Structure formats: C-alpha cells, structure tokens
C-alpha cells in the first residue's frame, strides 16, 4: 500500500486527526465563522512549515490589512516577524479581484507560487471570491485552476472561508479535504470543536474533537476513544499482584491488587477515599514510580494529609518515586486531561496512579453521553501501559443504600471496586469498607471497619454481630 507524503500542520492533535498531516499537493477548505480560529490555524501551520524548511504564500482576498493581522498574530508564540517577507509572503489579491476578476487572481497567485517557490499556499477569503463569481461554475473553475497550478508545483493549498459551506457546495466537491471549526455554548461556557468533514485519500479520526486557542495557537484534543479505539500496545494480562499499600486490604483481596488493574474507591465525602489513595501511593518506589492526578486538593494540602497518615510525600517526591500533578476543575478539556495523564505516565515511567477523582473528569466533560467510551478507552490504555490505577468516586449520599456510579457501565469497566460507607452502630459513627469486585480473584467479602491513624489505614473485622450495615444504620444482633 502506498503512503502519501504529508505536510505536518505542527498542531500535534490535528496531525493525529489527519493521520500524519495534510497530503502534499492536495487542497483543503478550512471553514468556520469569524473568530473560529481559521486564520490562527493556517498561520500556525505556515510558521511551522517554514521552520521545517518550507516556503509559504498567503494570498488574501480580504479587506483587512496585513498589518492588522500581524498585530494579532504577534500575541501568539509561533509568530516570528523575521520569517515574514522572506519565507512567508503575504500578498493581497483583493484589489485584483475587485477590478480585474477571478481569472486575474488565479494568474497573480500562480505567478507568486513560482516566484516564491511556495510549498504551501493559503488563500484567505474564499467567500469574497465566491461573491465575485458569476455562477457556481466560476467558483469551481477558480478552485480547480488554483489547485491545478499549485499541485503542479507540489504546493499544498488551504482555502479559508467564513461561510458554512454544505457538503454539496461546488467548493466542497472540488477539494480533497474539509476542516470545519465551530463553537457552541454549554451553559455559559463556550466550547470549540473541530471536525474533519472530508478527507480524500486518507484515513482520519472522524467526529467532533475539542480544541482551544491558547497563546501557542490552536491546540486540538483528539477524542481519546477515537485515538485509542484499540489500546496502543497489548495488555500483558499477567497475574502479578501489587500491594495496595494497606496490608490488610492485600490479604482481603487475595494477595494485593492485580497488576495493571483499575480500582474504584467509592464513598461519600470525608469517608477516607483520598486516605486509601495516599496509602496506595505511599507504596510507590523509584523502580515503580507513582503519580497523583488530582483535582481538588492542592499538592501542599495533599502533602499535609499524607503526613498525617505517616506517609512522607516530600521524601518520595525528592527520590523520584512520586509525582504530584494537580489541575483545577474549572478549566480544561476532558481529552486534554486524558492526554496529559498519559503523557505524564510515559515521561515519568509511572506504574501506579491515583485519580482523585473521576467525578472531576465528569464535571469537565461537555458531552456526558460519551463518558463511557472515554473512560473505557482511558482505562484500556492505562492497563496496556502496565499502570495500576486507583480512582476515587464521590457518592452523593452520606448514608443510605443508593449508589450512584460515575458512568452507568463503570462497574464493568473497572477491575476492582471498593465501597466505603459511614455506619452508625451503637451511637458511634464508623467507616466501613467492603470489596464488591476483584478481577480474576476470590476475595474476602466481609465488611471491615476502616481505622485511620498516624500509622496509616488499618482494616478491622467488624460488624460481625450486626445487620443492615450497608444501609448505614446498623443494628446489633442480640445474643440468643
């Protein structure tokens, strides 16, 4: 099978969506309303392309001046004024379009392609060209001629347009690919999305993917489940056990947590989920480093909490056995967070991760309907990378028997489930832990009491003489 040569866009996520980049000599439409990020995307590509040794011609058919464009671009990290006028040429064809028509614009751009030996041509303002065309056939001819000249010179073309062209429009039928940029409101939050609507001669990650415009330009986050529809490497699927950091829990689970497994610790606020996680991370070593991927507690607070449980977080961090990654729950993109987690795991060779909590990821998700797919892909990928995961999930009710799972099918997605509840027994509030599931293993299903002290967590056999413990209001069975 032949592989087509690619022009990298330099936008890592977009190159992933395009399976390597744009096809050399092909033509693309980038469409989106004003402010959607088309111009930034195209210029980001242009500056990346010249850094790689290419040459770019930007032909504008807009009334906006180039200086104004440079002024805005100068706030972005990729903009390098030294490249403008040398490797990147900006020419305005607006006047030519207005006074001399489409044919002359084609002639002008064709001459400029060869004069600058451009390997990428960006035509900004396709809508204006369309409005000057006398018939749809003229628009087709304009695009066909331009892409013909460009392809002849081995030049890849991007046509930017602010109109929302439909799939049957003459423009779409002519080009090899269509990249659409959109924006929608979720509550008061605006979410930017990118979609490859047409990719001729190439596989691509279809569907909508979120993106952000940062000071580094456009950052695209491919949907994790489309990126890892199959885990990137095979799951070792061995039967090794790793310590949970709590010796009694290791005994109850039949020798520790299965290696490369995902455990979910569910329970209400204040029950000690993070404490279980601290014990788990406390078992990190330089050979098998741990990572806290946390949302609520800052690293400083986490260290204090760990200290109270007898875990010297700072010493573990200093030795390279533990890494703390904290992110706010108020910003970010779900797939971006997933990508960040996987990147950290690769970079630091992480073998055990605590995600505190999955609920924060749910909060950030703009499309709850895809959470199952997201978590399934993320968990699959973590397992494939040989990482043992402990994730927390906060339950709404402090007491009671109702259990809200983060995603309806989560229990089948995770390997092990630990349930923690408050129980009132003989006018005393106790913490209960029960194992609901352990992958490929027999486990002790008895209800144990969680005792948290400065030596860490201990699990004690308890509730043996009590009934209705899971309801939260246990009663002692009277001696008969």
């Amino acid at each position, binding site marked *: 099978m032949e592989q087509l040569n690619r022009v990298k866009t330099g936008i890592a996520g977009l190159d992933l969506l395009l399976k390597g980049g744009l096809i050399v000599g092909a033509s693309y439409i980038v469409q989106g309303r004003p402010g959607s990020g088309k111009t930034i995307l195209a210029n980001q590509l242009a500056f990346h392309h010249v850094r790689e040794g290419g040459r770019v011609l930007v032909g504008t058919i807009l*009334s*906006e*001046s*180039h*200086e104004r464009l*440079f*002024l805005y671009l100068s706030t972005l990290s990729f903009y390098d*004024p*030294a490249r*403008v*006028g040398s490797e990147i*040429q*900006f*020419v*305005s*064809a*607006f*006047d*030519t379009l*207005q006074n001399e028509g489409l044919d002359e614009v084609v002639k*002008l751009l064709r*001459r*400029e392609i060869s*004069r600058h030996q451009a390997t990428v041509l960006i035509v900004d303002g396709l809508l204006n060209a369309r409005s000057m065309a006398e018939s749809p056939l003229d628009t087709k001819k304009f695009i066909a001629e331009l892409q013909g000249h460009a392809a002849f010179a081995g030049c890849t073309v991007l046509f930017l347009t602010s109109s929302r062209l439909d799939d049957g429009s003459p423009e779409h039928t002519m080009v090899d690919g269509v990249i659409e940029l959109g924006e929608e409101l979720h509550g008061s939050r605006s979410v930017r999305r990118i979609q490859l609507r047409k990719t001729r001669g190439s596989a691509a990650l279809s569907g909508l993917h979120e993106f952000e415009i940062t000071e580094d330009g456009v950052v695209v986050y491919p949907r994790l489940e489309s990126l890892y529809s199959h885990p990137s490497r095979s799951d070792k699927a061995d039967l090794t056990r790793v310590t949970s950091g709590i010796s009694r829990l290791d005994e109850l689970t039949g020798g520790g947590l299965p290696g490369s497994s995902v455990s979910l610790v569910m329970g209400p606020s204040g029950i000690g989920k993070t404490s279980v996680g601290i014990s788990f991370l406390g078992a990190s070593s330089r050979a098998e480093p741990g990572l806290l991927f946390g949302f609520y507690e800052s690293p400083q607070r986490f260290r204090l909490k760990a200290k109270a449980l007898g875990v010297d977080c700072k010493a573990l961090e200093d030795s390279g056995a533990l890494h703390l990654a904290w992110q706010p729950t108020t910003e970010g993109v779900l797939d971006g967070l997933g990508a960040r987690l996987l990147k950290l795991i690769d970079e630091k060779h992480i073998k055990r991760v605590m995600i505190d909590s999955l609920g924060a990821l749910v909060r950030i998700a703009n499309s709850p309907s895809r959470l199952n797919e997201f978590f399934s892909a993320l968990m699959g990928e973590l397992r494939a990378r040989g990482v043992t995961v402990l994730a927390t999930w906060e339950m709404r009710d402090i007491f009671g028997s109702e259990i809200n799972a983060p995603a309806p099918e989560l229990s089948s997605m995770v390997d092990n489930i630990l349930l923690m509840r408050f129980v009132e027994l003989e006018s005393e509030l106790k913490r209960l832990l029960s194992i609901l599931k352990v992958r490929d293993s027999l486990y002790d299903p008895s209800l144990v009491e969680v005792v948290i002290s400065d030596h860490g967590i201990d699990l004690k056999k308890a509730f043996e003489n009590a009934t209705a413990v899971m309801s939260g209001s246990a009663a002692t069975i009277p001696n008969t």
Partner: protein
Amino acid sequence: MTTILIVDDEYLIADILGYTLEDEGYTVVKATSGAKALDELERHKPSLVITDYMMPLMNGVEFATEIRKRVGDQLPIILMSGAQSHIGRSSPELFAAVFDKPFDTPKLIDKVKKLLERKTLPGRRRHPPR
C-alpha cells in the same frame, strides 16, 4: 500639481494614505504592484514614490532598484513596511525614508513635505501647493 505614486497591494492602506495626501493638495496615483507602478511612473512622472515592501511580482527593494535604473537617483522613494523595514534602512541609496507599519500618518506627511521641498527648491523654503 505635484504627483505622488503610492504602491501597495493592500488597497485599504493605499486608499487611506491617498486621501490624506490629496487633502494636503497633492495629486495621487495608485498601483497595486511594482510592475503596474512602473507603467504609472512613465505616464504620470511623479515627484515622489511611497511603496510597500511585500507585494506581488516584485518586492519594494526590487521595485526601487528598477526605478533607480530607469530615472536615476533624483526621485525620492519612501518605504513603508512592517517586518522588513531593516532591509529598507540598510539601503539608503534606494530609500529616502523608511516607515514602520502601522505608521504615524502626520509624521509621514511631514516627511513627504520635507522631501518635496528639498527636491523642488534646493536652498529655499516653500510650502507645497494647497
């Protein structure tokens, strides 16, 4: 009437500058490329040229070099440019002045006046026609 030739592929800049110069009493001729501007040069014999750098077919330096070849070094040329102004500043034989885009219009007008005064009446001061 003193004629000024403005060369810029961006019509907006050429227009705005053109109107301002017309308000000052000059006749303005505009061209969107160096090649077209050379035709206008023959036709209108301007007293001063203001040119952009980044343009189709020939850039500001190529255009100015061509002018020097055709009409010698008496015709003052002003370069207005963004990123490439350093190229203009290193060629004083081509450009009588270099302005960074976006430029300060009154300063540019002032420079135009000074250059035209020097050109038309060496040693004597005279205001440009109004």
